[in-house]
């Protein structure tokens, strides 16, 4: 794992028992993980009673270093040996490495879910609503007497902060059968692929 100088310095400070005793260190690591998972940026995240006596600039630097390191680890799916080796390089003792790794395991899968949801993708379908109607006549043609479906695909565009741009279209029964048939083909090949 490649870490910038600033992150390395921050981690080295975290390893320093004269700056952070073990308890304060543990609290800071826990806070770092939780702040990554909370939905809103919380300004008071560092307002823990254990941090009152610390130099605030140092505290912020170490928090940033910790969160950057955590994200890098989750991104690369780092295992215990990679993490231990890396933390050893920044002078972490065995106890602190253990504390870090335990917390890492606790929060890893949630962080993975969070990271996998980032990124660009085509508009994502979430749901579908449908309406069946029977057209009797309209202004231009009388005696139409045909059923038709109105389908709305509820689509979420991740790029615009999750705004929905629904796709609406109408179709006859045959067309809907065609659509469902093709979707079932896709589902069948999904099933086959999972059995490989």
């Amino acid at each position: 794992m490649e870490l910038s100088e600033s992150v390395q310095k921050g981690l080295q400070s975290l390893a320093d028992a004269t700056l952070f005793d073990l308890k304060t260190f543990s609290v800071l690591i826990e806070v770092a993980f939780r702040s990554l998972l909370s939905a809103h940026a919380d300004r008071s995240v560092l307002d823990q009673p254990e941090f009152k006596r610390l130099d605030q600039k140092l505290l912020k630097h170490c928090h940033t270093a910790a969160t950057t390191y955590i994200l890098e680890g989750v991104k690369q799916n780092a295992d215990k040996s990679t993490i231990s080796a890396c933390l050893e390089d920044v002078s972490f003792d065995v106890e602190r490495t253990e504390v870090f790794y335990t917390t890492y395991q606790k929060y890893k899968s949630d962080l993975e879910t969070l990271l996998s949801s980032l990124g660009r993708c085509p508009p994502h379908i979430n749901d579908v609503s449908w309406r069946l109607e029977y057209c009797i006549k309209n202004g231009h043609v009388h005696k139409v007497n045909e059923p038709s479906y109105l389908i709305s695909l509820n689509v979420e565009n991740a790029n615009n902060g999750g705004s929905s741009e629904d796709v609406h279209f109408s179709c006859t029964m045959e067309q809907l059968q065609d659509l469902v048939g093709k979707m079932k083909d896709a589902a069948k090949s999904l099933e086959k692929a999972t059995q490989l």
Partner: protein
Amino acid sequence: MLLVLSDEHKEHLGFLPEVDSAVVGEFGRIAVEFLRKGTNPKIYEGAARKLSVDAETVQHGVEGLMYLLTESSKLMISEVDFQDSVLVLGFTEELNQLLLQLYLENRKEIRHILGELTPSLPHYHNLEWRLDVQLASRALRQQVKPTVSMKLHLEESGGVKSAKVLQTDPATLMHLIQELEKALAELKTTHCRRILRNIK
């Protein structure tokens, strides 16, 4: 149900008995062509010169035919009703038969053309799909995320085609299939069958 023709309409159509049935046949063909592709005033002038009448008279005659055809097709009137409606004009039996044939041969197509005028949403044309597995992204490496990409082809009533690229995950795909199958099953219920049978 009988067609009610206005006096002005009857006057315009009054030109038709004055010419050969071959010419009326030609006018009929022109009327349908105009309904398909739009009017072309030059044709009126050409015909007017050949028949030694006003271009305006020719125009009225053709437009009268067009209106007769669209109104009859819109209401989908039966053969008998059409013949009775046309009887009012006092044409010869031969002319009436000609007009009837013109109506019967073209009404399906004319109804289709009229149908394009109605307000409607784009309708389904085709669906292409593809299975992908996302392996990595900038934010997270070593993933195995299956996704289904789809290209939905839609067509507007004017023939304008559009295609939308969409994506979904396997669980949502199963849900979509379930919901849409429910929709299809609705048509087969007693309630729907009763309505479809009785409103004709």
